[in-house]
C-alpha cells in the first residue's frame, strides 16, 4: 500500500512565523499535491509538483511556497503565517505524470495547523 506521511498531525504557530509542513511518500510517485480543507469550502489545491524541482500553482497559491528537492518529499512553506491560514492541510501523491488527473490520489492524514 502507498503510504503518504505528513510530519505533524497538529501544529500551533504564531502570526508572522515561517512554517514548514513536510510530506513524504514511499511509492516512487511522480506527482505530489498540497491541499487545504476548510468547512464549507471543501478541498482546494495550493500547489502541485510533477517532478523534482518542478512546481505548479493551484487555485490558491498566495501566501505559500513549496519545495521538492527529492522525489519522495514535498514541503509546503508558509512564508509569514497569518490567522487566515489556520486550516487542515492535506498532502497527496499519484503515480504518473501522464493522465495524472485521472489517477487515484493517495492522501496523508493531514496536519491541523492553527495560527494564533
Amino acid at each position, binding site marked *: 500500500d502507498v503510504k503518504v506521511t505528513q510530519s505533524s498531525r497538529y501544529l500551533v504557530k504564531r502570526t508572522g512565523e515561517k512554517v514548514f509542513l513536510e510530506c513524504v511518500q514511499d511509492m516512487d510517485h511522480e506527482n505530489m499535491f498540497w491541499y487545504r480543507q476548510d468547512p464549507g469550502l471543501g478541498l482546494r489545491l495550493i500547489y502541485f509538483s510533477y517532478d523534482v524541482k518542478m512546481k505548479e500553482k493551484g487555485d490558491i497559491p498566495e501566501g505559500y511556497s513549496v519545495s521538492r528537492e527529492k522525489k519522495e518529499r514535498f514541503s509546503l512553506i508558509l512564508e509569514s503565517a497569518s490567522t487566515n491560514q489556520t486550516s487542515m492541510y492535506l498532502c497527496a501523491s499519484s503515480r504518473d505524470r501522464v493522465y495524472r*488527473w485521472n489517477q487515484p490520489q*493517495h492522501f496523508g492524514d493531514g496536519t491541523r495547523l492553527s495560527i494564533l
Partner: protein
Amino acid sequence: TQLLEQSPQFLSIQEGENLTVYCNSSSVFSSLQWYRQEPGEGPVLLVTVVTGGEVKKLKRLIFQFGDARKDSSLHITAAQTGDTGLYLCAGRDSGGGADGLTFGKGTHLIIQP
C-alpha cells in the same frame, strides 16, 4: 473555475436504510472520482468512473456516471455504521481549462445504529 455541486450536504439515516448522494456540474468531466474521508484521516479513493453511463459496484455501494459525463451518483444499500464519513467527488474538466482536480464540498453522512 468548474464547480462540482454535491447534495445533500448533510444526511443522517438509520442503519439498514438505503440512500443516494449526488454530484452535479454544468461542465463535462473526462473522469470522476469518489473518495470517503473519515474523521482525522485523509480521503481514500473508492472508485473512478470514466465512461458516460458507466456503473461500478463496490459491495453495497453503486456508483454511476451520467451519460453526458456531467453528473454522478452514489447509492448505498442497507447502510451500516461503518459507512459514516464525508463523501467527496472529484473530477478533471474535459475542456482543458486550468490544470487541476476539482473537488466537491462533500456530503457528510451519518449512519445511526
